[in-house]
């Protein structure tokens, strides 16, 4: 786990040490120490909530500048469906595709196209009788990581199919190599245009597979202004987009699930809501559901921390954009109705990593838990955050793990000062 490469990081000089990120972090991974925020790498799932909520813009996501890839002979853009919702008055995706080519890419392969194929195979997968249900979507890397750290019982329910971004990179490279046999592997570079930091982490630390076929990630916000100005130059774009409304709908919450043409699904968005749903599923409280789509960001991928537009406005734009699109432009050949090709299936199952465990020795863990209970009782239970931890409970855990001192609690400190004062007064009175 120590070689996990995160994408969310802190620009320390901008951090004022306020507790906005500490309070919002869904895995309680952030503390304020020595006046600035510190992220626990084991717990961080790169969801980007801290980026969205930092008032000083001190939290950033590591993504690449476009220039980094100019050395490559052949550059492929993999635009996320969420990109299509970022532009005012856009009525044709071909403007975006042509605009990306204008930006210097040699080829564009829409992730929405790959998403339509993944939707077809997910339908096949759901017809199987030997799988754990409900099947939980694994396309949002935040959710997949969250499950691996907090919901051991649900690891087997994750859809073990590669996400659209992965398939898009693979298919794009195959296409390009067929067209340009002179190109070598190292000449080609597939760059994802990403709405979120979690996808940056995904590419560096893929889920379910050894190595991602995606070579780089540029954020939507990074490429946005260049792309808008490139799109303005285009008058009559060539017909190039190969996606239908199924693929485009993956950009918003509910899109992936609706594409399954099966009404026994649930879709939830926003990380806190997703956690609640997972808790309930773990208790088997939703009988009869076949599929669960969870998106860590409110609104789905359009709500990612690296987008430009308000997620709900982006979603409204996509509705208009979808209006004239066919249902789907990508289909698989009908063979076995439960078939999912081996190359689409994870070869490295997700394993539970118990990052919350207090100690690998259970009797020591119990002892620590008892200590936490006792220390927690000393605190005022106001969850004020002045100690740098999100809650009194979390701070009690920190103290037991030797990551804090009870006197960092300002209420306990106040008591101590009062006592000292009283002592002094008594001494003076003598």
């Amino acid at each position, binding site marked *: 786990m120590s070689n996990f490469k995160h994408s969310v990081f802190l620009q320390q000089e901008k951090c004022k040490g306020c507790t906005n990120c500490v309070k919002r972090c869904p895995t309680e991974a952030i503390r304020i120490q020595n006046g600035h925020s510190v992220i626990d790498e084991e717990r961080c799932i790169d969801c980007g909530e801290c980026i969205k909520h930092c008032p000083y813009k001190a939290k950033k996501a590591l993504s690449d500048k476009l220039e980094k890839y100019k050395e490559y002979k052949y550059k492929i853009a993999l635009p996320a469906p969420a990109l299509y919702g970022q532009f005012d008055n856009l009525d044709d995706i071909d403007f975006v595709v042509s605009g990306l080519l204008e930006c210097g890419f040699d080829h564009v392969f829409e992730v929405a196209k790959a998403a339509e194929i993944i939707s077809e195979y997910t339908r096949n997968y759901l017809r199987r009788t030997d799988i754990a249900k409900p099947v939980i979507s694994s396309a949002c890397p935040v959710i997949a990581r969250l499950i691996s750290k907090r919901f051991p*019982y649900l690891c087997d329910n994750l859809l073990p199919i590669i996400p659209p971004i992965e398939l898009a990179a693979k298919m794009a490279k195959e296409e390009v190599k067929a067209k340009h046999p002179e190109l070598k592997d190292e000449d080609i570079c597939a760059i994802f245009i990403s709405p979120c930091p979690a996808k940056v982490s995904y590419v560096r630390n893929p889920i379910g597979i050894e190595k991602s076929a995606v070579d780089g990630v540029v954020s939507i916000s990074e490429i946005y202004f260049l792309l808008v100005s490139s799109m303005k130059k285009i008058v009559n774009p060539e017909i190039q987009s190969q996606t239908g409304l199924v693929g485009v709908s993956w950009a918003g919450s509910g899109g992936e699930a609706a594409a399954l043409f099966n009404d026994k699904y649930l879709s939830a968005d926003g990380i806190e809501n997703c956690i609640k749903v997972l808790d309930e599923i773990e*208790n088997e409280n939703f009988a009869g559901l076949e599929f669960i789509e969870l998106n860590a960001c409110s609104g789905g991928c359009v709500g990612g921390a690296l987008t430009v537009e308000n997620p709900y406005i982006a979603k409204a734009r996509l509705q208009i954009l979808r209006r004239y699109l066919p249902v789907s432009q990508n289909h698989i050949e009908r063979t076995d109705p439960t078939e999912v090709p081996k190359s689409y299936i994870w070869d490295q199952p997700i394993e539970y990593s*118990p990052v*919350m465990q*207090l100690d*690998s020795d*259970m009797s020591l863990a*119990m002892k620590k*838990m*008892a200590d936490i209970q006792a220390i927690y009782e000393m605190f005022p239970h106001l969850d004020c955050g002045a100690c740098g931890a999100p809650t009194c409970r979390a701070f009690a855990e920190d103290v037991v793990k030797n990551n804090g001192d009870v006197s960092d609690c300002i209420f306990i400190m106040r008591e101590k000062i009062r006592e000292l004062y009283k002592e002094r007064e008594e001494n003076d009175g003598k």
Partner: protein
Amino acid sequence: MSEPIRFHFDVDGDNFSSAGEASVQVKRMLRQIGISPDVIRKVSVAMYEGEINMVIHANGGDADVIVEPNKITIVLKDVGPGIADINLAMQEGYSTAPENVRSLGFGAGMGLPNMKRYTDDMKIESEVGVGTTVTMTVLF
């Protein structure tokens, strides 16, 4: 041998949507102790069902969870109407839940049977007009 750890929760009787919160918290703490996922799930499911029962029938109550090195005991105590015929209440499909609760999808008559199924031992002490105490044990 480690000392037993006791967790206490007040189960709020007024709010359906918060029913189950105690079991979520217990799940979290058991995970921190390193209890196996299978055991956590049994405790969590049984406790959730019990919490819902307390909210539906007894306007809430007290939930205590005692963790020992080889077992977890869940004690759910309420001062509700009590259960007149425990054998009948234990039958699958038998329910006295009111209509408004059924319309929310609860009251299928599976609560007590599920609690028994997911635990290794379950004891119900109840007196009509006084209250009910359910004690469940999961061994590991």
